[in-house]
Structures are given as C-alpha cells and as structure tokens.
C-alpha cells in the first residue's frame, strides 16, 4: 500500500513537472512573439529600401557590440577595413588615395551623416561607439530615393534608443588590453508631450602597433569624445551630435610608411531638424561642420594629391554641409506615391597648408539639387511593383564641369507570412567626391561620372524557429571611379546566404555565407572572394554566452583568416551586468595590404599586412538607474 502511494505520488509529481514546464513555455512563447513583432526594427525597416541585413537590439546585445566596427566586421560584401591613415574605409585599397568609401552612406535616425568634402560619414562614424543605438540596418544596392541624397551601394541605418523602452540612466565602464578604456553615460526620458535622450562617451583606444622595420612602429591609437542627443515630439525631432577624435594616423602620407610624425585631429558637429508638416508633407534640414588638423613629418618627401612636400605637412581645413529636403507622400488608389526635392551645398571653408603660402581655393563649392519620384503600386495584398526615378544636377565652381546624374530603380516585391521574394533592376550614376577631385585638380578635375547597371534577387522563408534567405546581385560599371589600371568596366557577382535557427527563447545560431566574383578590378582580371559568419547565443540563469567566428578567404593569396570572438556576461542584478569579452582571439582576423614606395627610387616595397581588428580582452561593467 505504502509502495502504491509512493508510486502515485511520484507519477503525480512527474506529470506536474511536465505540465508546469510545458505551460511555462507557453508564457515564453507569448513573450517571444511580442518581442519579435514589437522590436523597434519592425517599425523602421522598409522592404522597399533594398536588400536588408538586420541587427536587432537583441542581436546587438548578444554580440556585446560596442562600436559600429564590431557589427560591420560581420557584414557580407563590403568588409570593415581601415586605410593608411587608420580611418574606417571599407573600400580602401591600401594605396595612397585619401578616401575610397563614398559608395557607402551612413544614416542616424534616417538622416544622413556626411563629411562634406570627404563625402561619406563612414570616414568618421565607421567605428563610433553605438551605446545610443537600438538597431542597425544594412541595405545593399541602390537605396530608395526617398532617403538618399547621394547614391550608394550600401546604406547603413543606425536607429537610436527610445526612452519609452530605455528610459532612465546607464553608466558603462570598460577596460581592456594595452590600457584600452571606454566610459559612457546616457540618460533618456519620456515626458507628457516630448521625449529626449543624451549619450556621452569617451574612448581612449590603445591599439596594436604595426612593425614597419624601424624603432618607430606605426601607431593608430586615438581618443574620441562623442555626444549624441535628441529631443522629439510626435511630429518633430532635433538631433545634436558632436565628435572630437584625435588620432595617430598610422602610415599617413609617408611613402615608405616610416613617418616621424603622423597625426590627424577632427572636430565634427552635426545638427538636424525634421518635421511632419501634415499627413502628406515632411521637411528636413541638416547642418554639418568638420575641422581637420593634419600633422605629418618624415625624413623624406611627402605626397598629398599631386603635390609633393619636402618632409613636413601641417594643414588645417574646415568644411560645411547644408542639406534641405521636402517630401510629399500620398496614396491614390493602389499607388503609394512619394516625391520630393533635395538640395545639398558643400563648401570648403578653409584649406590652409603651413608649408605653402598664398594658397588660393579655386574649387571650394559643390551643390547638388535632386528631384525624385517613387511609386509603389500595390498589385495585391502581398505583391507590389516599385518604380523610382531621380535626377540630380551637381554644380561646381572653379570652372569645373557640372554633372547630371540619372538614377533608375525598378522592383517587384512579394511578401507573405512565410515566403518573400524581391527583385530589382538598377541604373545608378556616381560622381567623384570633391576632396579627391580637389587633390588632383589638374588631372581629374573633369572626371565623368560612373554608371553602374545592376540586377538583384532575393528569396526568403521564415517560420517560428527558422529563417533562411539567399540573395544574388550582379552589377557592371562603366567609367569606374575607383582608381585602378583596368578598363573601368568592372563586373560584380555576389551571393549571400543567411540561416538563423531559434532552439528556444534562450538559444540560437546564426549562419552567413558569402561568395563574390569580380572581373577587371584593380589590376586583376578575376578575383574570387569568400566569407562566412557563424555565431551562437545562449542564455542560462543569469549568464549570457556569445561565440562567433568570421572567416575570410580570397583568390589573391588563398589564406584563411579567422576572427574569433567570445564573451560571457553575468547579470549580477537587474541593474548591474559584467561582461568579459575576447576579440580576434586567435589573432588571425583578415589582413589587408598597406602599400609602400621607396621614396628614393620610386620602387614598390613589400607591403605591410595589417588587420583592422585588434586582438583584445576587455572587462566591462554596466549599471542602469
């Protein structure tokens, strides 16, 4: 009898535990469903902006991503690179151009960050602290004209946190290898009729030195102070951003990468104001200002553009950008129409070189006026056709030719609960950026715009636990702008495969595979490029675990590169978290060549192979209040 009751009790307890555990997952399912459907990214992603690689807030937290570089290095197609000045320049060749990445554009809360004369904001913001960011969207290929003023192959959208979900304050402190340290503080609040957020961070980046065969290894250390702030209502928003960055600029202008002094300091101000005037009309205004001080010295000649300096160069330059946009939206029948006008004025206010007297600015103004029209025609509940047209007129002073750019974008989107399909046809034109034109004025002042035609396709499937997507992209250039000795008719083919699997609310894996084939690029007839990304995110009790590897290989050297990241976070309480993270643990992250020239003979020296990803261990504390 006693045995019978014990058995009954055991069976009852067993069933109770099963029922409790099954029922507990019901609540988890509801929480998971709410999280995914109400993630802030669901409110900002636009299927018509292009082909998306999304980093949700949850993903960024799992990755413990602290800078845009941490995210960028995992993205396909265009990897994170740095140029010979140690600046974010994903399309850098390692040669002597000042900057190559104007085909990549950066936006914060839908407003572009530019550097005026330098072009893309990626040059300064490409590795910024992203403590203020909620989620990040990478759109590949030509973006919709509603958001872009200047054309791009890749547009990166950073969206800031919302005080309704991230109200209150947060303090973050990080200490890492070589004395690398970061401090950040933020505060946000939602009031009755408005909300605001302020984020301030300071980074003292102590990075790996690069051996250049002398007793003065190359340095790319920097200090950066960054302010991000906004105030918004239901219909208006104002952003104020400040960035001060003082850098050791790696090889700088030294031809053989042995500078005696290589420093560049930046001070950048960005302000923007946007207003929804009515249900149909919106306006946006932006002002940006950048001051740059360059200090370079070598024991041999330095080259800047097509000018040679004895052995020192000290410059100060300032530039401003003014942008205004007016957009009209309306729905007429099945037509969702957006049209508008955009204007951007870039001015080079100062370019002062100590070593050159009476330097006169011949070319110091460039303005862009664009008109665009976009129609998304709804064929049915789950299909639409999109057509976009844009005309841009670029006006320049200094007797430099003006340019006219014509952009075309035609697409079809099918979107159901589980299956999605997109295809686009593009014709895009790019003009040379002002700074590159300015430095080589006599040679390339009237360089014609580049034309690119492209076609893309994307298929995806998702259900509760799985997400799979494959993309194909093909493009061909005419009159390619990036300096190379080819015909300027580079052909590109890319394919990207993504697969995400959710074991349960606490455990998931992400896989990404990428292949590219280039024809007639730089001095190479054909280049094959491969990369992969694999990550696991796991949560157990108060601990979070993240492990990831980024793999690269290409047909230039067939070397396998592996960037391994691993982190463990301990949620000591609801308000306090500690994280131990290792980056580039095997010290085998992708390297790129930095070219060198013998200043005496003009012969090419063996390039330096440098990885933009430092091997580093960090310990971080985060406290919310």
């Amino acid at each position: 009898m006693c045995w019978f009751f014990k058995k009954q009790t055991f069976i009852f307890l067993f069933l109770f535990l099963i029922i409790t555990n099954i029922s507990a997952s019901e609540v988890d399912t509801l929480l998971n469903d709410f999280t995914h459907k109400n993630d802030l990214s669901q409110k900002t992603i636009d299927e018509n902006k292009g082909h998306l690689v999304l980093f949700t807030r949850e993903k960024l937290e799992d990755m413990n991503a602290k800078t845009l570089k941490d995210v960028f290095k995992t993205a396909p197609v265009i990897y994170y690179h740095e140029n010979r000045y140690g600046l974010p320049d994903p399309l850098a060749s390692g040669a002597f151009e000042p900057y190559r990445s104007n085909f990549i554009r950066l936006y914060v809360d839908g407003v572009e960050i530019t550097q005026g004369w330098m072009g893309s904001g990626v040059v300064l913001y490409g590795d910024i602290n992203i403590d203020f960011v909620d989620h990040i969207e990478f759109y590949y290929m030509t973006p919709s004209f509603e958001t872009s003023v200047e054309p791009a192959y890749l547009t990166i959208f950073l969206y800031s946190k919302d005080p309704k979900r991230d109200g209150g304050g947060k303090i973050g402190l990080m200490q890492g290898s070589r004395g690398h340290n970061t401090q950040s503080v933020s505060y946000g609040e939602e009031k009755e009729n408005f909300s605001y957020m302020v984020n301030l961070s300071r980074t003292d980046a102590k990075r790996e030195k690069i051996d250049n065969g002398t007793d003065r290894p190359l340095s790319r250390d920097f200090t950066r102070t960054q302010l991000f702030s906004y105030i918004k209502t239901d219909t208006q928003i104002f952003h104020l951003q400040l960035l001060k960055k003082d850098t050791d600029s790696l090889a700088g202008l030294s031809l053989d990468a042995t500078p005696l002094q290589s420093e560049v300091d930046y001070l950048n101000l960005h302000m923007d104001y946007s207003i929804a005037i009515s249900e149909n009309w919106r306006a946006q205004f932006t002002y940006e200002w950048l001051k740059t001080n360059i200090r370079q010295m070598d024991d041999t000649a330095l080259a800047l553009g097509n000018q040679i300096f004895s052995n020192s160069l000290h410059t100060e330059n300032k530039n401003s950008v003014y942008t205004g946009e007016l957009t009209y939206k309306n729905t007429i029948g099945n037509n969702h129409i957006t049209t508008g006008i955009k204007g951007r004025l870039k001015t080079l206010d100062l370019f002062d070189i100590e070593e050159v007297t009476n330097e006169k600015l011949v070319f110091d103004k460039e303005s862009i006026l664009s008109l665009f029209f976009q129609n998304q025609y709804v064929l049915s509940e789950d299909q639409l056709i999109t057509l976009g047209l844009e005309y841009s007129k670029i006006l320049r002073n200094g007797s430099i030719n003006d340019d006219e750019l014509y952009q075309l974008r035609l697409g079809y989107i099918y979107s159901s609960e589980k299956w999605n399909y997109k295809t686009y046809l593009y014709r895009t034109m790019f003009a040379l950026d002002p700074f590159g034109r300015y430095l080589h004025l006599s040679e390339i002042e009237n360089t014609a715009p580049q034309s690119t035609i492209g076609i893309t396709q994307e298929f995806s499937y998702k259900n509760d636990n799985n997400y799979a997507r494959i993309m194909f992209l093909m493009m061909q250039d005419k009159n390619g702008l990036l300096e190379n000795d080819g015909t300027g008719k580079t052909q590109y083919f890319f394919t990207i495969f993504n697969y995400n699997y959710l074991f349960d609310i606490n455990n998931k894996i992400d896989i990404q595979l990428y292949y590219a084939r280039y024809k007639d690029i730089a001095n190479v007839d054909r280049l094959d490029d491969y990369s992969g990304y694999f990550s696991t995110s796991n949560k157990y009790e108060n601990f979070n675990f993240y492990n990831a590897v980024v793999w690269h290989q290409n047909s230039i050297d067939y070397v396998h590169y592996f960037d391994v990241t691993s982190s463990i976070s301990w949620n000591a309480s609801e308000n306090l978290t500690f994280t131990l993270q290792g980056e580039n643990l095997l010290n085998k992250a992708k390297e790129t060549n930095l070219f060198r020239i013998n200043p005496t003979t003009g012969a090419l020296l063996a390039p330096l192979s440098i990885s933009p990803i430092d091997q580093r261990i960090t310990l971080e504390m985060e406290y919310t209040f």
Partner: protein
Amino acid sequence: MNVGVYALDTQSTLNIYHEIFSSLLGSQKMKVYTRDKELRQVFKHSKKIVLSDTLANSTIILVSSQSDLRRYKKEHIEKLNHIIMFATDYRLLKKYDNIVGAFYWKKGRSQLLFIKHRLDKYHIKLAPKYRAFIVDEL
C-alpha cells in the same frame, strides 16, 4: 527621417496582456485604466478588455511613467485597495510597493516579473506556469 511614436503590433500585444490580466484578476472583469496612448489604441481592439476613464472604476491600473505614479498618488490610489496596479517600466516597481509586477523591455527583450509578497497582499495566487517569473523581492 523617423519621427514620433512607434505603433504596437495589436495581436501579440493583446495576447500577452490578456494572459497577464486574466492571471491577476481571475474571474473579475478586465477594466483597465491606462494613460499610455499606444496601449489604449491596442486595447480598443480587445473583446475582453474594457478601457476605464476613471481610476475608481477600474479593476487594474497600468502605470507607465513616474508622472503617472505621481498623479495616482495625488488621487490617493492607496485607498482603492481592490484595484491592482501593474507597471510597464521596471524602475516603477521600486517606487511604489503596491505595484505587483511589471511587463517591460530590457536590452531588446520583453520581460515579465511579479513580486510574491505584493501578490500576497492582494491575495493573488498565480498559476504554476508563472513560477519562473515570480521573485520574492526586488
């Protein structure tokens, strides 16, 4: 350009709030008082939730901000003992002992939390499926 509030997904929001309210209220009607514009917009679509225009006429009060809490304290909410208070911001749990739990965002994930001794004050006993979401104290 992104301006303004972000609208909630109706069905998933109703699903979780129906679950929370029914677990707290038992057989009582879901008469909800909230000043949150987004939630009011979502609750209008519910067949189970009735939006209340006054504190006294509600069975559950959602507290979404410090200013909400200050307003309710001014109206002596502690005298309305039959009304359950629930928060949408974790920080509010520390500000007022009568708030029995919270449904809030933390690092991109939605979180659910109940405080046991506060539930006991209201004589609320949650189903076993909520065991993982109950803490003894903050």
